[in-house]
């Protein structure tokens, strides 16, 4: 119950801050939205399959961008506010606090996907139809969990380093490309495939495409295999994140680097 309360409390607080501080809307909502619109313009003819890539790709970009910036700044923000010591002095494990914040950031990224649905439907007159809404939502939830878990891993590094901003900037685009958000990873060089396949969101977006389009062939493993890989990778990410936070928390208490920023 306490873990759930920590996660839900952190989730709510993160949402409140997002709406209270409009500057985050630019990198987290507007920028991925603009990228997607540019992609649609480049595609020219927005067929149903292009619309699928645009909506899911844009959504993934929004979710990942939000998660990455959110996790990168989650603790930097506490350092700036001077709340980091108060937060760390509570009995809640930092990993659950960050998990709540990270999940809230991933969910906020969905706003981007909804905006792109509207553009595709209203602007291009293309219907965005989801073949199996139940499987789609299931894949979406697991993918959000996977993104949140990745955010937790990155955040542990940010707790150690004062260079969170630089790291977030450097990690944003490679993940968009590697997960095949905008185009199939088959178009990427062969050497990059192991990297792509090691990322849970790659499988998550593939599962969502399977659920959206009955004719989709994607990575070739099918919806349920994709879902299983996302779930398993999420569990692994959480285990790594949990272990990293234990190590990092001990280190900051030993080295007294908690309030440095």
């Amino acid at each position, binding site marked *: *119950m*306490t873990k759930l*309360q*920590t996660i*839900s*409390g*952190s989730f*709510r*607080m993160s949402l*409140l*801050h997002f709406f*209270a*501080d409009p500057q985050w809307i630019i990198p987290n909502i507007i920028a991925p939205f603009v990228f997607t619109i540019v992609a649609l313009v480049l595609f020219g003819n927005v067929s149903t399959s292009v619309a699928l890539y645009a909506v899911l790709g844009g959504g993934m970009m929004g979710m990942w961008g939000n998660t990455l910036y959110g996790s990168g700044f989650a603790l930097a923000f506490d350092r700036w*506010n*001077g*709340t980091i*010591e*108060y*937060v*760390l*002095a*509570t*009995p*809640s494990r930092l990993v659950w*606090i960050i998990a709540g914040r990270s999940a809230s950031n991933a969910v906020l990224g969905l706003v981007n996907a909804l905006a792109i649905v509207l553009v595709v439907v209203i602007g291009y007159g293309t219907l965005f139809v989801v073949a199996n809404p139940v499987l789609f939502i299931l894949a979406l939830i697991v993918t959000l969990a996977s993104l949140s878990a990745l955010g937790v891993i990155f955040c542990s590094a940010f707790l150690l380093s004062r260079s969170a901003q630089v790291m977030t900037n450097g990690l944003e685009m490679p993940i968009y490309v590697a997960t095949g958000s905008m185009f199939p990873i088959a178009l990427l060089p062969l050497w990059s495939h192991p990297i792509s396949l090691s990322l849970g969101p790659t499988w998550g977006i593939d599962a969502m495409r399977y659920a959206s389009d009955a004719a989709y062939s994607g990575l070739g493993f099918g919806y349920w295999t994709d879902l299983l890989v996302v779930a398993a990778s999420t569990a692994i990410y959480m285990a790594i994140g949990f272990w990293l936070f234990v190590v990092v928390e*001990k280190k900051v*208490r*030993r*080295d*007294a680097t*908690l309030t440095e920023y």
Partner: protein
Amino acid sequence: MTDGQEKAIVVSDLRRVYHTSKGILRKTRQAVEAVKGISFDVEFGELFGLVGPNGAGKTTTIKMLTTLLTPTSGTAKVLGFDIVEDVVEIRRRIGIIFGGERGLYYRVSGRENLRYFADLYGVPMSKREKRIAELLDMVGLSDRADSKVEEYSRGMKQRLHIAKGLINDPQLVFMDEPTIGLDPQAARDTRAMIKQLVEKSKTILLTTHYMFEADELCRRIGVISNGEIVALDTPAGLKRFVKDITVIEVEAFGIVDTDILNLRRRPEVKSVSANLEGERQTMRIQTPKGSEFIPEVTKLLSAAKIFDIRTKEPTLEDAYLRLVS
């Protein structure tokens, strides 16, 4: 409290070394011993004060006792739990109130700040709102609970800090300079709240720069200087350190550092403290010679314009200055 635990805090030979580095290409590491093997204990229900100059080791001590820092060596038990091994057990039972403007989420309301910390402390959802309402009422913020913290005055922020530090109904509260930067009325309100907490049987460890505050509030005071506890006694006991002296207080304009150095060199002078800021400078000279020494002081400060010079009974501040100088 664990079984058999008779003291709220037991500190034994606690030590903390910080490692810093200088340079970019050729880094040189340096060790700074901030706390040098201190020992003290605090009774249940006691308001214990730790006083000392900046950099004396007060905040480092509090950070170790609140589990934010691990000690380099030594041991400490808080409510019967070890500060290294039983981190979560301690965190559940203590409250932390630091002074200063920071430490709150400014963009959200005071109520949301309390709600968030209630969640992090695991205050049951069924009791959360009632607890928040009680605390807001206690600190007099009920009317402004839903305003953003950035709209609060400095005193209101400090009251919210107090409410936040009590959200988990802690047995033991750590307060690090809770009245720093407050106007006199807000500082007085804060001290009144601290007294209320003691009446409610809370144990408090307080650090402060203000000796009159320590004198008014604390049952016992530990004076920390250079990482060591140089005296530990009741306020009355500490004042006995200066029972053999009289304080000559001077108000003047034009006192310079050399005047202070010259006074300090005199064998009759035990200690000199001065505030040379502004147009009305103040200086306190501790001497066993009493009013007999006034002509000497007047002579030594002949280049300055003296507005007033008189003898006073020594205060806790004089005892403190003697101990840390």
